[in-house]
């Protein structure tokens, strides 16, 4: 029986089309996986179902009856529960209050029925007993919990909706293996009870373990729906990335060694800090050093710490042969260090401001400028943007008018006016399209050839294999394996990443 059916659902934000044509059918008693690369429109689709995003077009049917969802409340009333990827928790409330927040049990209509609330919340809290970790209790404040524990609370909150259809938008990204396993047991139980479940994850093994069918979304469009036991990972990935995804990147195409005659650009010795411990490596001038491993194993934390935006406990960093411990990004920039984050919205884009002002801040700092004369700046900015093939109508249009990929090019162009010695790339291609990626990596290789030392962390194996001369695989905050020369294969990367996790 069809629990939910979407057809031709679309959503645009201004000029950006977040979802072009979303089709989806979820049956009762199945775990339906949604797959697609970042920015393909999965989350938008989920939020439309859950009522927090208003669709521009399309039809939604629940139990074969057309419905209109006017908001999250109405979605709930029509039997839809959701786990939000970005979580929807109140940090200053307790675990049990959060679990029951959507429908606080009432006494005399006005008062919170504490006893019922405790009892109801306990039902979901006990589901994760034993795996929820130290410090987790019904009356703990959510803001005091670890990220994985918060994710558990959001799961409990979604479960507490007791909705016939529950959406889980990347519910496992911070969970450890035991927690995931427990969660899957719960999902299997829900399946048996005839609930419909939409599940999003980027981990292929999880999808295999729990999913029944998969719907693949690419560039905001539903491509197809497949039976998971009739297909394999390769097919799914090919469908996800489209035609251009057929790159034979199982073996590295980057040279295994570079001329290290110029010496080290960046040396890190025994560095420990919040999120990583005892990391040592050296990047030669002209070398691209890859950081691999599952998401959130300390790669970003380490890169930020080197850039002066994180905390360092012990160890030392050298740029060239000089000791380098940046107190702030400002300090790091002055001394020739550059950092590009994949989280553009948070770390990069100065939203609402003209493109030119998004390119110039580093130049202002390194040239100690006081006056910003557009005519002069244009001569510096234009070549930097051109070298990335950035598409824009005018330097004075707001950066928000560009696509994600072009925004990221603008952010990278910042670093090209005054060349740094070291370039730290923190998953720089997150959510940008393939042609922008190609431009980006062409530039990165060029920069390496010009003698920069480059560290590249990427959550996509193909990017690492295609560009890195060496790869350090991170696991649990430290380097678990170094892949050099012919060891740089997709298989080794995958295996090292999953080793202890």
């Amino acid at each position, binding site marked *: 029986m069809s629990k939910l059916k979407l057809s031709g659902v679309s959503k645009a934000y201004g000029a950006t089309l977040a979802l072009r044509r979303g089709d989806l059918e979820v049956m009762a008693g199945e775990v339906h996986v949604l797959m697609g690369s970042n920015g393909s429109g999965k989350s938008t689709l989920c939020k439309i179902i859950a009522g927090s*995003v208003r669709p521009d077009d399309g039809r939604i049917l629940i139990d074969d009856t057309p419905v209109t969802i006017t908001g999250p409340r109405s979605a709930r009333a029509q039997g839809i529960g959701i786990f939000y990827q970005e979580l929807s928790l109140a940090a200053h409330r307790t675990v049990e209050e959060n679990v029951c927040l959507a429908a606080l049990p009432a006494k005399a209509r006005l008062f919170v029925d504490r006893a019922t609330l405790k009892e109801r919340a306990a039902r979901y809290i006990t589901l994760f007993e034993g795996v929820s970790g130290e410090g987790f209790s019904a009356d703990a404040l959510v803001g005091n919990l670890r990220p994985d524990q918060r994710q558990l609370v959001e799961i409990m909150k979604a479960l507490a909706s007791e909705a016939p259809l529950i959406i889980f938008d990347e519910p496992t990204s911070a969970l450890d293996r035991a927690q995931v396993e427990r969660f899957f047991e719960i999902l299997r139980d829900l399946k048996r009870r005839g609930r419909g479940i939409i599940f999003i994850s980027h981990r292929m093994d999880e999808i295999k373990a729990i999913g029944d069918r998969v719907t693949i979304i690419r560039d905001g469009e539903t491509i197809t729906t497949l039976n998971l036991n009739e297909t394999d990972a390769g097919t799914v990935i090919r469908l996800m990335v489209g035609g251009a995804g057929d790159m034979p990147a199982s073996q590295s195409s980057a040279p295994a060694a570079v001329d290290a005659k110029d010496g080290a650009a960046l040396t890190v010795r025994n560095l420990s800090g919040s999120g990583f411990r005892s990391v040592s490596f050296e990047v030669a001038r002209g070398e691209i050093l890859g950081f691999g491993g599952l998401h959130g194993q300390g790669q970003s934390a380490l890169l930020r710490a080197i850039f002066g935006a994180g905390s360092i406990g012990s160890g030392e960093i050298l740029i060239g042969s000089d000791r380098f411990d940046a107190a702030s990004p400002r300090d790091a920039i002055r001394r020739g260090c550059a950092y590009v984050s994949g989280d553009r919205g948070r770390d990069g884009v100065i939203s609402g401001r003209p493109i030119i002002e998004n390119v110039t801040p580093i130049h*202002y700092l390194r040239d100690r400028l006081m006056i910003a004369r557009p005519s002069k700046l244009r001569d510096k900015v234009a070549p930097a943007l051109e070298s990335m093939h950035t598409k824009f109508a005018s330097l004075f249009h707001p950066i928000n008018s560009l696509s994600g990929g072009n925004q990221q090019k603008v952010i990278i162009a910042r670093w090209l006016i005054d060349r740094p010695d070291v370039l730290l790339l923190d998953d720089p291609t997150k959510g940008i399209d393939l042609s922008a990626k190609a431009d980006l990596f062409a530039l990165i290789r060029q920069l390496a050839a010009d003698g920069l030392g480059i560290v590249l962390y990427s959550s996509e194996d193909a990017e690492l294999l295609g560009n890195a001369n060496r790869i350090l695989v991170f696991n649990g905050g430290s380097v678990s394996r170094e892949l050099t020369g012919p060891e740089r294969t997709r298989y080794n990367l995958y295996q090292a990443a999953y080793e202890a996790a």
Partner: protein
Amino acid sequence: MSRVTSFLRQPIVVALALIVLLLYLGALLSPGFASGAQILRLLIVASLLGIVAAGQNVVILGGREGIDLSVGGVVSLSAIIAGNVMNGADIGILPAIAACLVAGAFFGLLNGLGITLLRIPPLVMTLGMLGVLQGLLVVIRMGIPSGQAAPALSRFVTQPLFLSVPGIIWLWVAIGILMAFMLNRTVFGHRIYAIGSNEHAAYMAGVPVRLMRIALFMISGMFAAVAGLCLLGYSGSSFANVGEQYTLTSIIAVVFGGTSLAGGKGGYTGTMAGAFLLVILQGILTTVNIDESGRQMVFGATLLLLMMFYGRGRAMRA
């Protein structure tokens, strides 16, 4: 959206249209309201508010709930300091200017330090500072006799200086040009917008966020001090709490100028229009023959109505 409608929706266009509308309305209600002399009088009053609003403007543009509730206190304090330092003599004007600017910068510095180093929310910090300033006013007023404005200062504010326009209006125009230059053509200005629209990204791009924020509050204090000085010239002698009204009206002027209270969006040209708009509105209400209660009710209701034209919050459902 077509080019025309997007042009018409710009806050400054809205403000200018409303200014024309209100002037017309004023002329209907009271003949001579829109005469040159009367408009100049309104502009003098508007320039006082506009100068305070310049400081408020940069603080708000800098984001992170930036707001300066202490400006009213600084205006009063500066008027009193200036009155006592110059005490009716032209020779004392320069020392008075220096003293006022130092005082304004000092209290701005205190605000900035509390907000950046102790991370006290601006609203709380400047609210507390307002209390301190008000206390200080009492001390000064009781300790020393109230001062007089120097004749040259009064002339500067009230008498025509050049092209039959008083000096203070020229000063306001100069500040307007200076602000436009600072916000659009200097690194400092670009950094104000950067920290206002995405503080973290600005930090990651090497903007000295804390120093910037301290500087903004100092600028705010100094503009309030300049306004206090001019206010002394306008009223002739200093009395307590002359500046009180500027605290919230300066914020309204900034909002009516199209600057978002969330920071990072807006500019000073709009604020100038906003300040003038506010003063015309008050001017009309004093001209028409209704009592104080009616005037306040109409003023409050009109403010609400006008706010509907400006940056309403975003709906929660995207």
